[in-house]
């Protein structure tokens, strides 16, 4: 999520648009103000012409000194006065104006120069007064510019203010970005939400929730890997020792010792394989639980039949009486493969921990909307104090007659959770061993 690279920076956009707007508004403002100032100057000069003409109207024109109308910067007035008979009574210096003019205001062009002319007439005389248009316009522009330049100064100030406000408003986002960027790869601690604007806070809160979930998955994974590595060390140590013992037996040449060593090594390999397989099953089940595949109706009766068929040789080899006690037809929503793994683990456990010539019973029944799968055995059972701990990965009951991977019941628990089923461990009243009951919500 790069802010800059995609060309979609909030700050950049705000800055560009707002600064463009400030610039545009300033330009428009300057333009109208300039034009307004020009118009006003125009009106003012006209008024001045009129005033001057009126003041000259009644006065004895001959006494007027021409320099009185010359401001010295070329902004001079050209005056002609005629008597009632049309005789020119007065003419200011350097006037190139035509001898007659229309009454009121008019624009006149003489020898390439433009003049603004005002004429007024009374009974005694006609007064014509004129101004050089170029000089007048230069003066007006100067006045208009004086009215406009503060705006030109204000615009950059306004822009700076806008930039500052934007930067300040987005500072929490920047801070957040830096906070995230400077993190170690495995740092999933929540981000600081204090001082964040309302628009950003929900996003950060969601992010924190996500971090939390990822963190937990991460930790579960890490602890599983650590546990697995730790658990693999025992069978590997055994293998190493057994291989060493085999090598020694080879050297001493005692056939019986050699055979025993080979047998032990094979047992060690079988055990390592079984452990790795159980780890894979558990990892797969845990991964599946996260995927949320849709459940389908599973016929537990068929599942039990298949499961018992699969482990029957195992049971017969130890003379264990394995059978179904109650076999109600039960259908539950679930994942058939996972449920087969669950049943297989329960049956394996029951057979492994039952003494030779023991008994293992499987029961299926339905009461209302609750369907139960029960596996009972005649083994030593699990002491009440241990019953929650045996569901932990790699936990083994001390003094158990057989040594398993420590994963069987953890797998059962994972699959039960995945199906929303309740797992109950208890003592079997009939057989004296462990009684495992799984309660499902039956399919309707």
């Amino acid at each position, binding site marked *: 999520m790069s802010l800059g690279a995609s060309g979609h920076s909030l700050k950049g956009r705000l800055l560009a648009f707002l600064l463009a707007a400030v610039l545009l508004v300033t330009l428009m403002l300057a333009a109208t103000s300039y034009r307004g100032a020009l118009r006003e100057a125009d009106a003012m000069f006209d008024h001045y012409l009129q005033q001057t003409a009126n003041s000259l109207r009644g006065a004895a024109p001959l006494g007027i000194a021409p320099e009185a109308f010359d401001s010295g910067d070329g902004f001079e007035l050209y005056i002609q006065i005629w008597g009632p008979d049309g005789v020119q009574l007065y003419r200011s210096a350097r006037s190139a104006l035509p001898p007659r003019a229309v009454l009121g205001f008019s624009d006149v062009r003489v020898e390439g120069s433009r003049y603004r002319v005002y004429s007024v007439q009374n009974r005694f005389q006609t007064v014509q007064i004129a101004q050089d248009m170029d000089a007048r316009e230069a003066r007006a522009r100067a006045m208009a510019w004086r009215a406009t330049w503060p705006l030109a100064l204000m615009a950059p100030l306004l822009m700076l203010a806008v930039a500052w406000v934007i930067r300040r408003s987005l500072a929490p986002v920047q801070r957040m970005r830096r906070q995230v960027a400077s993190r170690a790869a495995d740092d999933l601690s929540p981000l600081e939400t204090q001082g964040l604007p309302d628009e950003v806070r929900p996003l950060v809160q969601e992010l924190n929730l996500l971090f939390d979930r990822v963190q937990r998955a991460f930790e579960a994974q890490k602890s599983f890997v650590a546990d697995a590595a730790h658990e693999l060390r*025992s069978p590997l140590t055994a293998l190493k020792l057994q291989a060493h*013992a085999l090598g020694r037996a080879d050297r001493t040449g005692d056939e019986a010792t050699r055979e025993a060593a080979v047998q032990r090594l094979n047992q060690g390999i079988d055990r390592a394989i079984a452990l790795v397989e159980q780890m894979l099953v558990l990892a797969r089940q845990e991964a599946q639980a996260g995927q949320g595949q849709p459940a389908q109706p599973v016929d537990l009766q068929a599942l039990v039949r298949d499961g018992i068929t699969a482990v029957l040789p195992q049971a017969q080899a130890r003379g264990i009486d394995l059978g179904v006690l109650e076999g109600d037809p039960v259908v539950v929503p679930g994942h058939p493969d996972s449920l087969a793994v669950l049943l297989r683990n329960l049956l394996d456990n029951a057979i492994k921990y039952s003494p030779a010539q023991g008994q293992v019973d499987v029961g299926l029944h339905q009461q209302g909307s609750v369907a139960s799968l029960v596996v009972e055995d005649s083994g030593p059972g699990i002491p009440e104090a241990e019953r929650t701990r045996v569901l932990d990965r790699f936990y083994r009951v001390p003094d158990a007659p057989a040594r398993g991977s420590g994963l069987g019941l953890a797998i059962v628990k994972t699959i039960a959770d995945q199906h929303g089923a309740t797992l109950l461990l208890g003592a079997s009243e009939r057989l004296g061993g462990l009684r495992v009951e799984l309660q499902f919500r039956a399919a309707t």
Partner: protein
Amino acid sequence: MRLLLVEDDPMIGETLLDVLRAEHYAVDWVKDGEVADMALRAQQYDLVLLDLGLPRRDGLEVLRQLRARRQQMPVLVATARDAVEDRVAGLDAGADDYVLKPYDIDELLARIRALIRRHAGAIEPVFSHHGVALNPATREATRDGVPVSLSAREWAVLEPLLARPGVLFSRAQLEEKMFSWKDEVSSNAVEVYIHGVRKKLGSELIQTVRGLGYMVPKE
């Protein structure tokens, strides 16, 4: 030399027991922390090979209690717990050495020999006295440089005596070092093997202190 093997994994335990016995150690094997503690209270061992992840009582706890009782026997921790803090905790609890599973068996045996040797106060890897030398690593015995063949029991009775010259061992103490719980011990076993050693290495090496026991005199 009498060893206590504390290991809850039956496969590791069985094989290790065979390997250690083949090295002529008298080995007792216990499978949980409680029994290990009981064994350590009842018996003086020359070395304890201790796993940490034990049922009933953790190996570290067993070790701490052993040291709290001021029992000095060397303890070699052999465990799958590989984190540095575990190793530090193990050594701080009183372990003399720490090996990680899966370990190399030859290395484990060498460490066992080194710990026993160091505990006996010897620096050289060979116990040697009065021209008689025992090399626990190679199981070779020599007298004035000439190899002598000793039976496992003869070795077992001579090694503790030669390891600590000047120290008097009672017959019962020597029996303890030679035999584990499972061995059938006849009442005159020690005398029989001492006699065998004297025949091979000369009668002056091991002195009998009547009514008390045996010793190898200091040079």
